[in-house]
């Protein structure tokens, strides 16, 4: 049997991940759509992994400049994205004493 092309395996992962993402995101409560955007920003900064390899393992000047710049830009999102999400989510924390006052429905 011939070996399966790695791109095909990547494609399988890709399709299944979209499927997972689709179902998970539909469950996100609309009130948290802004934190959803900021946390997905942080998660898409996972390209930092590629950037790190580029910064550390390249030998030419071009490769290194590109790599370091990519690491810096992705780090802005990694740190900024998660921290600002946390800051927002802290605001959604229920305040025990005030919560009962206006509760209705």
């Amino acid at each position, binding site marked *: 049997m011939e070996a399966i092309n790695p791109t095909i395996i*990547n494609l399988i*992962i*890709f399709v299944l991940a*979209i499927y*997972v*993402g689709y179902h*998970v995101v539909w*469950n*996100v409560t*609309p*009130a*948290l*759509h*802004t*934190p*959803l*955007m900021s*946390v*997905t*920003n*942080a*998660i*898409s900064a*996972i*390209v*930092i992994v*590629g950037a790190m*390899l*580029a*910064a*550390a*393992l*390249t*030998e030419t000047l*071009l*490769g290194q400049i*590109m*790599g370091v710049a*990519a*690491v*810096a*830009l*992705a780090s*802005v*999102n*990694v740190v*900024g*994205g*998660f*921290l*600002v999400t946390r*800051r*927002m989510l802290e*605001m*959604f924390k*229920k305040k025990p004493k005030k919560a009962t*006052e*206006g*509760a*209705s429905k």
Partner: protein
Amino acid sequence: MSMNFVVLLYLLASVCFIQALKGLSHPNTSRLGNAFGMTGMAIAVLTTVALILKLSGEAQSGLVNVFGGMVIGGGLGAIMAKRVEMTKMPELVAFMHSMIGMSAVFIAVAAVAEPTALGIELVNGLIPVGNRFELFVGTFVGAITFSGSVIAFGKLSGSYKLRIFQGAPIVFKGQHFINLVLALLMLGCGAWFFMTQQWLPFMIMMAIAFVLGVLIIIPIGGADMPVVVSMLNSYSGWAAAGIGFSLNNSMLIIAGSLVGSSGAILSYIMCKAMNRSFFSVILGGFGAEEGTQTGSSEARPVKSGSADDVAFLLGNSDSIVIVPGYGLAVARAQHAVKEMTEKLIAKGVQVRYAIHPVAGRMPGHMNVLLAEAEVAYDQVFEMEDINSDFGQTDVVFVLGANDVVNPAARTPGSAIYGMPILEAYKANNVIVNKRSMASGYAGLDNELFYMDKTMMVFGDAKKVVEDILKALD
């Protein structure tokens, strides 16, 4: 550390990312979810450090580069996350999309320059065709994300004089034709690069993609920004997935597709809430910005009142629903509104908030502002949950919102016919705060303003609410 172990750790990180999104299904679980996300990212980064240590052998200078970049970028990110005002969240998010886009482009350039360093194995001294294709896709999606997000950022912040950063759409003749030609040219250069792996077509393609990103976003008006921001969110995910394909890294593919589908779903929700197709938003040219009303009904009388009148009306009612809109964000009135509600609740009035999905400039914008002002989230209702209650509500207080409460959406033939609205017109009394009588972004007159039971209060939202506060004492 074997390569298998590295990949297993990457799998663990991917699962953490899924948990991070899953946590957002409820405010109570969301903080744990975010912690999962951070853990996943930490695992991914540390594993990569270990991998670099293993691959680089004695020469450890590469890690210095990595940490240098991390300290600069991370420090900047931390400062921004700490300082940003909640009313400025849409700008921050647009800015962060552009970072991802540019980062993806840089990685792709590095990968073309030195494929072996990034784990791409050469065939006859060239990058395999599959990887070439993926690099091409990753680059152009990244480039479009970058330049598009920069324009979106300018439009959202509204503080730059440059015409392309203005909220008003830029429309010119043959726009779609030019975009189409450029897109075809870009794909042509991509194909050329795909066949030959030369720098020239790669660079031309990249340059065209940057221009295309600008051209795609400039015809889109300020109030369509919720769709644009979600769309760019989606693009940034696809760019990450594209880089994952070219580097054969399943974690990047998983994380990228999670983000990509998340952004796509948000765009869909936003379009649906405006009853517009995705393509009509992207192609632009719907209505115009504020103040371009046809003028047929300019002189119609409205009943306007003062803050004292509003305070009297609010203080003597049993139930109030507040409808916040972009005007509240612009005026940064959320804290004043919260104080006002507290006073009213102390008087025994039932106060609730009704939020339309497209209120503000990004999905969930209003919810975050109210949460910042410490409004308990069980006072805040989504459109479907509160619409049936408007009929039994004494007073609806519309703060800086317009189209989302326009009953014209129920009139066949209207430009916004079919758009789901908050049924504010069903309440016993309506108070509307606006800066002026200018029409909303759809350029439509709002029947709600002329109803007998409606009182208009003109002025900046924050100032008006503060005056009401004084009058309530």
